[in-house]
C-alpha cells in the first residue's frame, strides 16, 4: 500500500516511512518541503528529478505532497466559486491519458481527505469521456456531481478546431463557460492544443505538456504553466507562466501511473479496454460514413425516384391519352420540369 502524503499529513510522517525513504537514497526534504530542489536550472536538472521520481516508484515509497493538486483542490473547494480547467498535450503514445488520470486520482484523494469521503466519489471511469463526440461529453457532464474530476480524452474528436462554427462546439463552449458553479476539475487531452476549438483554449486555466516520458520508470515528466488570455487594445495576448510555490518556480512535475494510487488500482486496464471499444466504434462509424460518401444518393435523386414511383403511371396514362402538360401538372402537382424528367425516364414522347 502506497501512502499519499499532503502538506498537512506529512507533518505526521511515520518513522518507518522516513527510514524507508532515507534507505532508498531519496532526500526526506522533498516530503517535508513539498518540492524537490533541483539546483541550477540547466539541462541536467531533469535528470536529477527523474532519478528521484524513479527511486520513489521503484522502492514503492510514499508519494510526496503535491502543491499543484492542493492548489487545484483549493480552487474547487475554496470560498470563491471557481473551477479549474486544463489542457494536456503531447505526442501520441507519450502518456497524456495516464498523466491526466494520475492527476485526477491525486485530486480525488486530496478532496476525499479534506471532506472525509471516498476518493471514488470524486473520480471514476464514468468521469472519463473516451473519444466521445460532443453528445457523449455533455451526457457525462450532465450527470457529474459537483467538484468532480473529469477527463476528456482526445478532445479533438468532440471539439475540433475544424468544426469551430458547428452547433456542437458552440454548445460545449457554453457548458465550459458557464459550468463554474459545478466546480469541476476538467482535463482535456489532445496531441496538439491547436487542434481544439480556440474558445476552449482561451478558457483554460493551465496548459500542461508531457515533456519527457519515462515509461520504463513508470512516470512522466510534465511541464505545467498557468494560462491567461486577455483581449486588450484590439489584440489577444496569452500569458503562460510556470507555477510558483514557496517563492520557487516549478520547472517539472512528475505524473505516475494512476495504478500506484491504492483507490485506483486496476484503473488503467479498464480505461484501456473502454478506450479500445471507443476507438473501434469511431472506426466503424467513420467507415460507414465513408461508404455512404463514395456511393452518394443525393436528395435530388431520392426526390425523382419518389416522384416516378408515385406519379409515373399517371403521367404515362395521361400522356398516352393526349392530355396537355398543364392538365398533368394540375392533376399531379408536379412541375413541368419533373414531368419532363418522368417522361424521359419512362420513354414517353
Amino acid at each position, binding site marked *: 500500500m502506497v501512502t499519499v502524503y499532503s502538506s498537512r499529513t506529512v507533518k505526521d510522517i511515520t518513522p518507518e516511512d522516513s527510514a524507508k525513504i532515507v534507505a532508498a537514497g531519496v532526500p526526506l526534504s*522533498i516530503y517535508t518541503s513539498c*518540492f524537490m530542489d533541483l539546483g541550477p*536550472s540547466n539541462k541536467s536538472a531533469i535528470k536529477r528529478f527523474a532519478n528521484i521520481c524513479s527511486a520513489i516508484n521503484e522502492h514503492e515509497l510514499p*508519494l510526496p505532497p503535491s502543491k499543484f493538486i492542493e492548489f487545484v483542490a483549493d480552487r474547487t473547494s475554496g470560498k470563491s466559486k471557481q473551477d479549474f480547467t486544463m489542457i494536456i498535450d503531447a505526442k501520441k503514445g507519450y502518456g497524456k491519458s495516464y498523466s491526466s488520470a494520475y492527476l485526477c486520482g491525486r485530486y480525488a484523494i486530496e478532496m476525499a481527505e479534506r471532506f472525509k469521503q471516498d476518493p471514488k466519489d470524486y473520480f471514476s471511469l464514468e468521469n472519463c469521456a473516451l473519444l466521445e463526440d460532443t453528445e457523449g461529453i455533455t451526457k457525462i457532464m450532465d450527470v457529474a456531481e459537483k467538484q468532480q474530476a473529469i477527463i476528456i480524452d482526445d478532445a479533438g474528436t468532440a471539439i475540433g478546431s475544424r468544426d469551430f462554427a458547428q452547433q456542437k462546439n458552440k454548445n460545449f463552449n457554453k457548458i465550459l463557460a458557464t459550468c463554474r458553479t459545478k466546480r469541476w476539475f476538467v482535463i482535456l487531452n489532445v496531441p496538439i492544443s491547436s487542434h481544439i476549438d480556440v474558445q476552449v483554449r482561451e478558457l483554460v486555466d493551465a496548459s500542461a505538456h508531457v515533456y519527457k516520458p519515462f515509461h520504463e520508470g513508470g512516470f512522466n515528466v510534465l511541464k505545467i504553466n498557468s494560462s491567461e488570455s486577455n483581449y486588450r487594445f484590439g489584440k489577444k495576448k496569452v500569458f503562460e507562466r510556470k507555477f510558483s510555490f514557496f517563492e*520557487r518556480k516549478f520547472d517539472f512535475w512528475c505524473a505516475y501511473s494512476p495504478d500506484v494510487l491504492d483507490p485506483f488500482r486496476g484503473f488503467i486496464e479498464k480505461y484501456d479496454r473502454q478506450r479500445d471499444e471507443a476507438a473501434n466504434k469511431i472506426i466503424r462509424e467513420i467507415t460507414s460514413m465513408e461508404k455512404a460518401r463514395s456511393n452518394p444518393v443525393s436528395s435530388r435523386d431520392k426526390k425523382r425516384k419518389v416522384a416516378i414511383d408515385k406519379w409515373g403511371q399517371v403521367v404515362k396514362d395521361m400522356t398516352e391519352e393526349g392530355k396537355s402538360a398543364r392538365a398533368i401538372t394540375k392533376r399531379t402537382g408536379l412541375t413541368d420540369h419533373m414531368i419532363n424528367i418522368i417522361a424521359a425516364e419512362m420513354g414517353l414522347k
Partner: protein
Amino acid sequence: MQASTDFTPTTELLSGSPKMMYTYFLLNQCAKYLDAMRQPKDVNIDTVTNSLLAFCPDVARRDKLFDKYIERKQDPKIENAVTASILTIGDFQAYLSEVLEFTEKSAGGF
C-alpha cells in the same frame, strides 16, 4: 590597455527593462574596473573600488562591503589593496548574481 568608453546601449537594451539596463551598465563598470586592476600603479585602488561598490542597490549591503574592504586591506594575510579590492568586488558579484538571478534555480513537484 585602454578601457572602452562607449556606454551607449544597443537599441534592444534601450527598450529593455530597468533590470537589463542596470545589468548592462554594471557589467561595463566591471570591465573598467578590471582594466584598472591590470594597471594598479597608475590608479587609486580605493577610489576605483569604492566607486564600483557605490552602485550596489542595497545600502546595508554596500556599507558592509565597504567595511569588508577596509578590513581586508588591513589583514596581514592579504597584504595589498589590489587583492582586498578584488575579493570585495567578488563578494559584490556574488550578491548581484543572487538578486539579479544570473543563476536560475529549478524545482520539481509531484
